[in-house]
């Protein structure tokens, strides 16, 4: 607005008007008056030259710092839908980012678990509904219905155990030494990982249990044994080597299932008495875990 003011007929197009250096300086320091501020701001949106000139008034150090932080924030992954849902439920953001390091929450792991369960469940269904012919050694021709479920009952809680084991075994965490040397509570880290691995694996297992040709209460009946198994493994890890603990827990489940399958009564492992036993094991393990939680703060060196 160096020459003509806008008259009553409309503004004069000032296509080559540019804000002078003084004007911009006044604007940047906040000492310009309203008319100047308005005209500068309205002009800025369409003029790259004045924008660059105005940029000179910004603190270069500050701009560089913001640039660095921006590029880091852009480099961090944003998280999928599940994460967004959990965030809205109130789970703190940093706990969710810790989960990114858990191998048993990655798609590849869950897909392989689902794959194994699909094979086992599929085989059970196939035998049950007669797709696999019974041209087998004599003993198997008298195939009782429930024995068909034995492989599934063996495998499903073991897969859940495997998922939880991957959360606490140091061999699955390449940066385990950093986790030990860090102030973040080892118990919290372990529980966050174990619980989320447990939940993720249980979802897959329960879904598979619905598909398997068994009694309707099978999906629910698998929950307590899986929980008990994982709790036992964690508690045992405070007493012995973590690998040994995981293997012991696995064996502790596999042996009864195999024995019962040989006796043609595999479902006993998930029926009433066994459920009570699992509950007892779960409570005992939880107690041991609570009492010996300091062990998770020190590296696995003894």
């Amino acid at each position, binding site marked *: 607005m160096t020459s003509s003011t806008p008259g009553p007929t409309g503004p004069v197009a000032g296509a080559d008007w540019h804000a002078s250096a003084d004007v911009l300086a006044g604007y940047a320091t906040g000492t310009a008056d309203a008319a100047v501020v308005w005209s500068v701001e309205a002009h800025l949106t369409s003029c790259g030259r004045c924008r660059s000139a105005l940029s000179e008034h910004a603190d270069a150090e500050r701009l560089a*710092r913001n640039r*660095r*932080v921006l*590029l*880091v*924030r*852009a*480099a*961090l*992954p944003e998280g999928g839908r599940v994460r967004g849902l959990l965030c809205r439920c109130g789970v*703190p*953001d*940093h706990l969710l*980012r*810790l989960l*990114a*390091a858990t191998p048993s929450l*990655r798609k590849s792991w869950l897909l392989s678990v689902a794959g194994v369960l699909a094979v086992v469940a599929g085989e059970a269904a196939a035998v049950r509904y007669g797709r696999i012919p019974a041209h087998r050694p004599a003993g198997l021709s008298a195939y009782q219905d429930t024995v068909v479920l034995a492989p599934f009952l063996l495998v499903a809680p073991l897969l859940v155990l495997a998922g939880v084991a991957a959360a606490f075994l140091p061999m699955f965490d*390449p*940066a385990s*030494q*950093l*986790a*030990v*040397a*860090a*102030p*973040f*509570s080892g118990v919290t*880290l372990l529980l966050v990982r174990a619980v989320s691995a447990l939940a993720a694996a249980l979802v897959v297992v329960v879904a598979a249990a619905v598909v398997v040709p068994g009694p309707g209460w099978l999906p629910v009946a698998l929950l307590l044994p899986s929980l008990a198994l994982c709790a036992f493994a964690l508690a045992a890890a405070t007493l012995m080597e973590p690998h040994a603990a995981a293997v012991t827990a696995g064996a502790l489940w596999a042996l009864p299932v195999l024995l019962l399958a040989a006796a043609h009564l595999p479902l006993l492992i998930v029926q009433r008495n066994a459920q009570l036993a699992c509950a007892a094991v779960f409570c005992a393990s939880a107690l041991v875990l609570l009492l010996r939680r*300091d062990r998770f*703060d*020190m*590296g696995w*060196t*003894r």
Partner: protein
Amino acid sequence: MTVNVRTAAVRADGLSRRYGATRALDEVDLTLDRGITGLLGPNGAGKTTLLSILATVNEPDAGRVSVFGLDPRNAGERVEIRRHLGYLPQELGYHRHFTVAGFLDYVAILKEITDRRRRAEEVARVLAAVSLERRARTRIRALSGGLRQRLGIAQALLGQPDLLILDEPTAGLDPEQRLRFRELLSELPGDPVIVLSTHQADDIAAICPTVVVLLQGRVRFGGTPSELTATAAGRVWAAAERDARAHLSWRGGDNRWRHIGDHPPPGAELVTPTVEDGYLLLSHAAGAR
């Protein structure tokens, strides 16, 4: 509890640790002050064990450690020590699917920086310090060994620790990168206690005002590099032929033989010893015992 990081230091008294039949550490006494201390010794001398004990990752069989006046045997004080600690282990594995920024973000959470924005600022700060800014989005599996080492150093710097423990930080770095590493260490704000281990004597000579030599689980020397060099004064000589009386001989780049021994022959051409010579002399003496 308050930590007095201004005047207190790191002390270790009578540390011992064995793995099965081998004695990794044997009655080690150590005091670390502000500034850089170098831990020199061959592989298997117990450097990694000692550093992992100082980093509260391992427990000693016997002896006491005091870090800034805190005792790692006490659980609460252990967590407090870890709040002031930055640790680069010797064999640091990485979650290979992580990006550089993602990994540093993860370690920052482990260091209890819970606020998202502060974490981003911290990560940006350490990335700038090790010059890895352009690689923030690269996956770790795509990084070369030297870049991974720089990433390891970066994660140790997160949170501006008062005690920095670096186990073989210069392994896998080429000479130019080692130079930048030295500059980086000298520019750290806050004047932390830094202890780094290496088996290369020229790193020690270049960076560390204090040297501790660890051989077979025992401290054989503690002092400045020039003192270590001085132990070899008058015991290093060069000749055209190999001398059988020397403890150690090798052919140098100029095709002459260099000897280190207790009794140089009369009229031998004495050469100025280096830190490495002092170290080799010590290690030979320890081996002979």
